[in-house]
């Protein structure tokens, strides 16, 4: 991606985000959020976060790899367990990285 395209994306993303933030503060009660959009928004965090994570864990060199040799998948599963038990962001980061490094050191991969 060229520098110009990147800044175009950054400026556009900034403008869109600002417009979303300002929307109702500026319009104050003159429009209402449609009920369907309101309920859909409840699912955005869980959906987006999962959609980002899954390819990063399952894909190795452009193909799905479900095996004991996929260190990132195993470390990711460990991180899910840590996040679920502790609800702590720092512990999830440290535990996930430590698991990945340990698996890389053991070298189960091809």
């Amino acid at each position: 991606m060229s520098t110009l395209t990147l800044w175009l994306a950054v400026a556009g993303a900034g403008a869109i985000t600002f417009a979303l933030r300002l929307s109702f503060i500026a319009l104050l009660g003159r429009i209402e959020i449609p009920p369907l959009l309101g309920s859909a928004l409840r699912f955005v965090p869980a959906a987006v976060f999962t959609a980002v994570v899954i390819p990063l864990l399952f894909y190795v060199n452009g193909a799905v790899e479900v095996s004991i040799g996929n260190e990132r998948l195993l470390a990711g599963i460990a991180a899910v367990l840590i996040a679920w038990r502790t609800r702590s962001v720092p512990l999830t980061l440290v535990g996930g990285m430590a698991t990945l490094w340990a698996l890389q050191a053991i070298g189960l991969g091809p």
Partner: protein
Amino acid sequence: MQPDGIARDLEEAIDEKSSSPAAAFIAGAKAIVPVLLALLPFGLAFGATATGSGLSAVEALGMSVFVFAGAAQLAAVPLLSAGASVAIVLLTVLVVNLRLTLYSASLAPHFGRLPAGWKGLLAYLLTDQAYAATITPFDEGERNEPDKRWYYLGVALAIWVTWQAATVSGVVLGAWASEGWSLDFVLPLIFIAAAVPAIKDRATGAASLSAGIAALFCATLPLNLGLITAALAGVLGGLVAELVFERGQK
């Protein structure tokens, strides 16, 4: 002067102080401190993964200043490094940040009578954390009218400064770390840490599951449409699950 006269004077002095703009600003900044500690790893992760994905320090900081929205910034990094088109990046940012309209609507009555400049400033600083920290005291009437903007500004500016400082620290960390450390793995980890608490009930669980399955099949879609397609599939899955579970209860 009688002792309780002094006490009354002191009380009045404190009352007066607590309604001054500076005091409200400081009260807001103080109230948000525990949240700032939780925000640090996200800013660090953004700075580090942005650098690891080939963004320059200025570009990473530029994103934090212009966009100032953690989840959207983190979601945009893999798209940008994969060379996705501007339209795909913007569409993703739009979907990820749509929730900000909910906060905007909820805070609007409290900022209704402010001049346009104030509205613009407060809107620019609107984040999940700023909303969560201010809406309860505002709705419960703990802050009176002229105080609200200053209290909110104290909360939101503290978040802004923390986010920029964490971004810069993350950039430094990312540039200093070697490739052998696999620091790019911080990106999925930070999203795992965010996704797990976002799954609160069966319907949000269904949203996550549908998004995950869709992401597995959509990852190789052309134009990097995989993320946005999977996210929308997840939202749809959540809506359908909610309908089904509601019907099951009747």
